[in-house]
């Protein structure tokens, strides 16, 4: 995929490239690239730790979850679909799943996966870039919010609000990203149907 990466985690990233994190994750997925995994670790492990420390767990307990989550990133990379999730969203989900599993001592109920078979049509780089653009718009929208609303959204996603607090708070308007994901799901359903 001949696309130039955007610098990590910046809001002024170029709008025409997947994030460098997504490219690292694709390198892990497609080539079992350990150096790229090392980059993912350096970027995400301290952020998983940061998120989990808010829950009041000890640093040692948190680092156990960081370790488990990063190993799952390696093990499950083949399930990563860059037309539906940027690397950040996918790793956020894995970290959450593992945290809930540890805290509740049971598996989190998960939606059944929708995974394309090998024969399914290869996603277009344009779809991946489109999703990244939507994610960039989402980040820009978050940064434009009044500070109190922005803090509330951050607290919600970092696990600091109860479900009734989340109910009463306003969410981030998803904009076009939802319809783009919806289209990707439709394509996937279509591919799965043709496979059968």
């Amino acid at each position, binding site marked *: 995929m001949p696309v130039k990466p955007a610098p990590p985690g910046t809001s002024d990233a170029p709008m025409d490239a997947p994030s460098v994190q997504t490219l690292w994750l694709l390198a892990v997925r497609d080539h079992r690239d350990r150096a790229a995994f090392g980059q993912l670790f350096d970027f995400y*492990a301290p952020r998983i730790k940061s998120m989990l420390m808010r829950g009041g767990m000890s640093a040692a307990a948190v680092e156990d979850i960081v370790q488990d989550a990063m190993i799952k990133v390696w093990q499950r990379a083949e399930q990563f679909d860059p037309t539906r999730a940027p690397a950040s*969203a996918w790793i956020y989900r894995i970290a959450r799943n593992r945290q809930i599993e540890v805290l509740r001592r049971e598996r989190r*109920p998960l939606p059944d996966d929708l995974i394309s078979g090998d024969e399914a049509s290869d996603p277009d780089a344009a779809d991946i870039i489109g999703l990244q653009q939507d994610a960039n718009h989402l980040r820009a929208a978050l940064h434009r919010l009044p500070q109190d609303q922005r803090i509330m959204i951050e607290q919600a996603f970092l696990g600091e609000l109860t479900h009734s607090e989340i109910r009463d708070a306003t969410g981030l308007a998803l904009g076009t990203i939802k319809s783009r994901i919806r289209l990707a799901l439709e394509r996937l359903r279509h591919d799965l149907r043709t496979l059968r």
Partner: protein
Amino acid sequence: MNTVTHHLPDWMIRAYVAGGLGRAFSLVVAAHVTLCDECRAQMEGEEASGGIVFEDQRPEAVAVDLKARVMASLDTVPASPAQPAQQGIYPGAVMAALKGRAPRWRTLGGGIRQAVLSHDAEGSARLLYIPGRVAVPDHGHKGLELTLVLQGSFADETGRFAVGDVEVAGAELEHQPIAEQGAPCICLAATDAPLRFSSFVPRLLQPIFRI
């Protein structure tokens, strides 16, 4: 894909994504998303938002040897078994709650059966089996009640619910769902507080039936 017309509220999907939902509601969210691409897209959109907030955080340094430990165990740690797959009308999350077995139905009377899946301080989840044209006893509830149709359909004061549809009933709703003619209606129902049946099952028996 079914044509789902009754969806989960966005806030509930957001609460699931953020890890703030209890076990019973999480089960309904996961099961509904399995059956509904509209809410799956909403969930993945919420995850994209979560990912942005997650990525924007100030990083917290991890122990110096953590990376080496992770790199060393990449190919040695066995992958944990996946959640059981969807089977028949039951999404994988429900199959997991059933421990991979068929539901063990208990008769409630009037042809209605239930199988309790989970029951704790945060709420309860169960499968309900209601023969066609039978009414689920009129009940109100202290908290929220989610009812997801897995087979057949039911109708109540608020509308008609077919496979994939989820009814979200607040404490104010005293409703009387009636299974429609045809195949028995099988639902996944979850509450964040015990149900209060206003008739049918004497209140005294409720702790025994765990409803």
